């Protein structure tokens, strides 16, 4: 029989030597980390003391995608930065990545020092309502909030909605007045009701000024990926250009970057969305349909700070300045004074309720 000790001795020796090798690596790592820790400890340290003690505090939770999307989330962030500048508020934020983190973030803010808690995006609708009921002394806001008929909105919640179809109507009219081929295109991101609002308004606005024209409609897909697929966006845009479209409106997140590339390649025009997207393709952006998320965030923070906060659903259309289109020195070459006048007349008609813009 084999004596166990004769097998063990070399085995354990080898184990020990390889462990000591790893130990050496680990010690090295530890030394580096400690050194780095000391270095950073010397540099840091002032961040905590900057906070004001009695400032009005806002906790903001971003939509999926987080900061740096050049659109929705960044607009909300701009609103906060302006509020810090003008109103002297303090703010903190979270960028949730997963379903349960939205509620967790709202809860952490509500249970902490925040006076106003903001959820950016329709995904927050249920979470905001739920957490707000548990923290009645705190104020809550939800951008793009969805609700069904009969839903009860707690009194400490304001749900902010935008009439995207109204802004889209105006850029549709601009497209109809500027187009030379009589054919324009629309590139949607995900094929869902929210994006159908953009399409419906755009189409209605175009047809109002150009009843004989044609609107080409294409969607990038049925998954969330449809909002971040520039390759697909370019493909769809080129297809529409080949069918005669000379102006393309996109409502497709970063998929739209492909649309911009297509209009640059073929020397056509594009219409941006959410924020002013002029910088993405200078010389090829006819205008942008803007959604004033920053204004909404700023106004809500101001109201909450001043004590004029009112719960309920606020719907921001053209009349309230919630949606708009960009008109400045970059696009006055296309949007002539006559066109501008015509579009502004439409704006007035919509604001006064004489034109009913379809949302689907």
């Amino acid at each position: 029989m084999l004596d166990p000790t004769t097998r063990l001795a070399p085995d354990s020796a080898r184990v020990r030597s390889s462990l000591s090798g790893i130990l050496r690596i680990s010690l090295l790592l530890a030394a580096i980390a400690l050194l780095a820790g000391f270095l950073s400890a010397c540099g840091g340290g002032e961040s905590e003391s900057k906070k004001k003690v009695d400032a009005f505090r806002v906790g903001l939770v971003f939509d999926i995608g987080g900061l740096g999307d050049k659109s929705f989330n960044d607009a909300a962030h701009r609103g906060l930065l302006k509020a810090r500048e003008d109103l002297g508020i303090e703010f903190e934020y979270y960028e949730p990545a997963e379903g349960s983190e939205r509620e967790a973030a709202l809860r952490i803010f509500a249970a902490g020092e925040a006076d106003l808690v903001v959820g950016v995006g329709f995904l927050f609708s249920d979470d905001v309502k739920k957490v707000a009921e548990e923290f009645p002394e705190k104020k809550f806001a939800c951008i793009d909030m969805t609700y069904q008929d009969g839903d009860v909105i707690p009194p400490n919640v304001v749900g902010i909605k935008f009439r995207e179809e109204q802004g889209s109507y105006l850029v549709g009219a601009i497209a109809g007045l500027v187009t030379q081929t009589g054919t324009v295109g629309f590139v949607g991101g995900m094929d869902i009701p929210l994006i159908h609002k953009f399409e419906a308004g755009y189409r209605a606005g175009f047809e109002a000024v150009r009843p004989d024209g044609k609107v080409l409609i294409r969607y990038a897909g049925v998954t969330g990926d449809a909002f971040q697929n520039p390759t697909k966006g370019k493909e769809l845009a080129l297809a529409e250009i080949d069918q005669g479209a000379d102006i393309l409106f996109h409502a497709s997140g970063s998929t739209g970057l492909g649309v911009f590339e297509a209009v640059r390649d073929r020397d056509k025009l594009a219409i941006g969305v959410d924020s002013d997207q002029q910088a993405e393709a200078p010389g090829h952006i006819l205008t942008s349909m803007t959604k004033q998320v920053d204004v909404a965030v700023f106004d809500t923070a101001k109201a909450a700070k001043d004590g004029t906060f009112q719960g309920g659903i606020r719907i921001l259309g053209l009349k309230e300045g919630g949606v708009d289109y960009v008109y400045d020195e970059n696009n006055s070459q296309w949007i002539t004074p006559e066109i501008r006048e015509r579009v502004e007349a439409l704006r007035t008609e919509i604001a006064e309720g004489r034109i009913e813009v379809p949302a689907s």
Partner: protein
Amino acid sequence: MTAPRGRVGGGVDVAGRGAHSGIAGVLASGWVVGLAPAVLAIGGGLLLGGLLVSLLGVSPLEFYSVLAKGTVGSAFGWGQVLFRATPLVFTGLSVAFAFQARLFNIGAEGQMLLGGLVLAWVGAWTGLPGAPFGVLLALLAAAAMGGVWGAIPGLLKAKTGSHEVIVTILLNFVAFALVNYLLTRGLALPETVRTAEIQEGARLARLTEWVPVFRGAPVNAALFLACAAAVLLQLWLRLSPHGLSLQLLGEGPGAARYAGLSVGRLTVLAMTGAGALAGLGGASFVLGYKYYFEEGFTGGAGFLGIAVALLARNRPLWVVPSALFFGALSYGGFVVNRLVPRELLDVLQAVILLLFILFDQRLGRKRT
């Protein structure tokens, strides 16, 4: 020695107790050697993490104290971590199960997604019986759905020899598209990306109902289901002839064929079982937290399950602590979000895994 790796530690253990005492004996004992790569990898990863954090101008001390306080430093944090770990146990078990037969299930994400949709769909059925049968029915349906989705690559491998890695990856995309198609074509409530709420009879209780300190945290009874699944799977692999056959197949198709086993049937079994386990991954979110299916609810748990199984060396019982660890890390990314970009914790996860593979290979080679 050609013994399968999982049992080598035990052999050394016997020898260790017999002869040496002192440090060498302890080091050579199976437990310590078995855990050493994981401990070293986690330690090394955390050190490197501290380095990265300090490069970003944040003090590592502050970083780790915020991380610890937010995750394991409060009942709320624990509730979040346990909630996060629950689906990871299921997907980790899924990957580990397929790997018994040396098959790679990269499709847990799609299986979990489809299983989750079925949970919500069956759960919302108005004719559903009350608890516990409603829950049971929903779980069975989800496991069946995941099982079918897993069986496809199994069958394709058995019949045509097409590689399960490719097929499972591609089936993920099919699952994403299918789920979104169904959502946009009627399953989702208007203007949302979620389904209707499930019936009372299909709901799993929140842990807050028994342990009030978890107030507000989403952890729920699905955690117990996950742990039970791990225990049952471990027993099944040890005791059932099928479990042993799977492991024999893992030694190589030649060995299995020589033993008179049907390689094709075992392949399908391994992938179906893996799919069924992943199909249950949504139980925690759909039956125990939100009570509905929501687009993107998986949060990548299907893919992270691969890492969970790897760190657990594909042993079902070890999947539980491994899932807990990865659950803490992924919730940790959210916790430290106010200090550093949350992607840093993803980097940390990757570093820990790489170190683990490195250490495990070095130590593992020495051991055999």
